[in-house]
């Protein structure tokens, strides 16, 4: 990890708040998943639509399940989906972006740019739907759709940066002594895109969580299990009847998680002075 990034995250109020929020939610999700906390989002009781109480902080839903437990379970889902999509998209984006940037103007670059153009032209919801058809739905189709679509943004940025850096004199001097291209890319170019990758990782995380919620809400994402999107889907009926537990819990947790990520992204962008560059 990058020293400047860590320094910025610990050194600023925004960075500390963001990290704190993420750590808190992460630990909560972990504790619930490993059974350390008595929060079971699947256990049904005959207390339907109970209002908030000491036992059920956000009340219960129409099946009598504890809403807080489901919201914490939603955090676990969000982390799981977010981390998988982010890792995949960043790795793919860095690798293909570096190749395209190094070969800027060549046929490989043109081919990769074409692929990126194709993916960019397919709205994420339709890609997710198509993949859900092909793979029979579920979490893996959703994660695959997001990874397959989100890597493009990172790849474009890495491509531009690598193309910009490859005319730099430190790269020329590596070329002049005859260093093989893959070595130059890995040793001299990719390390100089770490700041882009870190920022993109947080932004991809944000996009993944937002998309997961909407896909699950629409019924092309998570079908069973717990998700803030599913809770929000339930809540659309609830709120018309005056039950706000589901909505408050899901949107509150969602907001805190996104806020944490965005604060981290913002701090990183400031630290790397990327704020000025239009995305």
């Amino acid at each position, binding site marked *: 990890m990058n020293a400047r990034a860590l320094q910025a995250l610990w050194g600023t109020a925004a960075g500390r708040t963001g990290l704190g929020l993420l750590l808190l939610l992460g630990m909560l999700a972990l504790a619930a998943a490993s059974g350390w906390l008595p929060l079971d989002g699947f256990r049904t009781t005959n207390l339907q639509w109970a209002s908030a109480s000491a036992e059920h902080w956000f009340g219960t839903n129409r099946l009598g399940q504890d809403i807080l437990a489901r919201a914490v379970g939603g955090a676990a889902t969000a982390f799981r989906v977010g981390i998988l999509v982010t890792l995949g998209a960043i790795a793919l984006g860095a690798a293909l972006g570096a190749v395209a940037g190094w070969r800027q*103007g060549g046929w490989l670059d*043109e081919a990769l740019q074409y692929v990126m153009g194709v993916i960019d032209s397919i709205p994420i919801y339709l890609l997710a739907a198509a993949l859900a058809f092909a793979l029979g739905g579920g979490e893996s189709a959703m994660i695959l759709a997001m990874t397959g679509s989100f890597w493009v943004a990172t790849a474009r940025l890495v491509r531009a940066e690598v193309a910009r850096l490859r005319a*730099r*004199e*430190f790269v*020329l*001097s*590596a*070329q*002049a*002594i*005859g*260093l093989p291209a893959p070595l130059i890319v890995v*040793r*001299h170019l990719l*390390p*100089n895109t*770490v700041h882009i990758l870190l920022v993109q990782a947080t932004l991809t995380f944000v996009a993944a969580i937002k998309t997961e919620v909407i896909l699950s809400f629409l019924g092309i994402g998570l079908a069973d299990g717990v998700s803030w999107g599913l809770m929000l889907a339930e809540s659309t009926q609830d709120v018309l009847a005056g039950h706000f537990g589901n909505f408050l819990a899901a949107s509150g947790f969602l907001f805190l998680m996104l806020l944490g990520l965005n604060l981290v992204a913002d701090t990183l962008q400031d630290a790397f002075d990327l704020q000025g560059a239009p995305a």
Partner: protein
Amino acid sequence: MTPLALDARDLRVDLRTPAGFQPLVQGVDLALAAGEITGLAGASGSGKSLTALALMGLTAPHTFRIHCASLQLDGKALDPSLQRAMRAVRGPGIAMVFQDPATALDPVFTVGSQLRRVIRRLPGMSRRQAAVRALDALRAVGFKDPALIARRYPHELSGGMRQLCVIAMAHAVRPSVLLADEPTTALDACTQAQVLDQLQRLTEACGTAVLLITHDLRLLARYARQVSVMFRGRIVEQLESSHLHEPGRHPYTASLIEALPRLHGRRHEPGRTMAQEAPAHDRPPGTAEWTPATPDSPALLSVRDLSSGYRTRRSGWLAGHRLQPTVHGVSMDLHAGRIHGLAGESGSGKSTLARTLVGLVSAVSGSVRLAGRELLEGHRVQGADARRRIQLVFQDPAASLSPRRTIAQILREPARHFGLDSSAAALSRVLETVGLDDAALERLPSQFSSGQRQRIAIARALICEPDLLIADEALASLDVRVQAQVLDVFRRLRDQHGLCLLLISHDLAVLAENADDTSVMHQGRLVEQGPTRRLFEQPTHPYTRQLLDAVPRFEP
């Protein structure tokens, strides 16, 4: 005594940091007399530009804090920290010309419309009057066809012409004070004189007081009457420019003057005698066999009829490649133990030639022989041996070292690649040659000054144990004092290690002092070459003469 157009007392600029205020400019007094050029000299980072921006009230208010005990413009008091007040005087009161002509004008408006917009802000200017005045201003800076220039977009003009257009703005607005921040640094010597002459005409025609900010004392000696020398945010000396040659200057001023390269009257003679007299055990390892070369001994590198250039690629899909040679039929011989100078304006093909020799650019035709062996294979200089024995040091020290690798990693990479000694001892030996010590090894490039970085770049070249070291404008971005240090390293490499150096520079004075032989390049061709002294004393080609005439003199 001419009246003062601008009188600033005790100007301070502080950087706002989370830890408090960090002073960058302190206690600066500046007095600019109407109708003349006043100089402000100093190394980069000494606070010259910041001083000028502060006087304009153009520093970012949330980044810098400005304080000025008293600032008088045309006898009226001003406070540079007040945005609104400064906005009112900018233009007709005080204006500024910046360094980079490439970006100084708005690319999406024509020169004429930018001039007219500036003029329209003056009281009582009609559209028609503004148009007339804009053309007058362009004529005043020497444009023969102002109407044509006014219709041009900035990208259609050369750097010098763009800078003249900004000066034309000054002619149009007639400010009391014009601050010119390194206005000619990015220009060729010939254009530089043209632009500065126009700046001088502005002082005469409009009575403007000009502050000429530059690192080049030679320019101030010629154009300025009063000179202030700045060092680390303070003015260390103020003097008449005619006194620059006299002894008894402030030590910093004296060191700046001493470091100035001179076209005539001083030469760092080749250290042949020195090396010969040195006892054998004093010689660096590996050079024991070396005997000083003379121009008659066989050449180390022999280039014949070399043409080369970049592949230009037409943009878009299914477009072909085209090779556009920028170097045409160059022939030259380089000898061990000598410094060869290569002079010429930017764009003359010097860098392309250098890059062809290290295999970064393709040759179209010709031959390159190193110690008798042909290096060109399939239009490129190839082969590990050639890549090791010819090393190139680039211009920009900020870009020439891989930013995220330590100096040890940077130095070890080529050594390992060529199977040479990459031990800690070898690294520190090569660092010592360029005047740095072991402490540098574990640090990152960003922790060094540009002069130090350039020396590290030289060390990276030296660790390959090259026979030929090419320095492609390696001094151009360094301050004169640092430049002198690096030249010192070059001369030592020649004298003690018998290295052959190709010193590429647009600064003829540097070559006059240091090169044994010099070649002059113009539009991709070598127009003249020979021993430096003969070449500079009796130039035969008109272009060489033109270049020599454009060099700012600094001789009493």
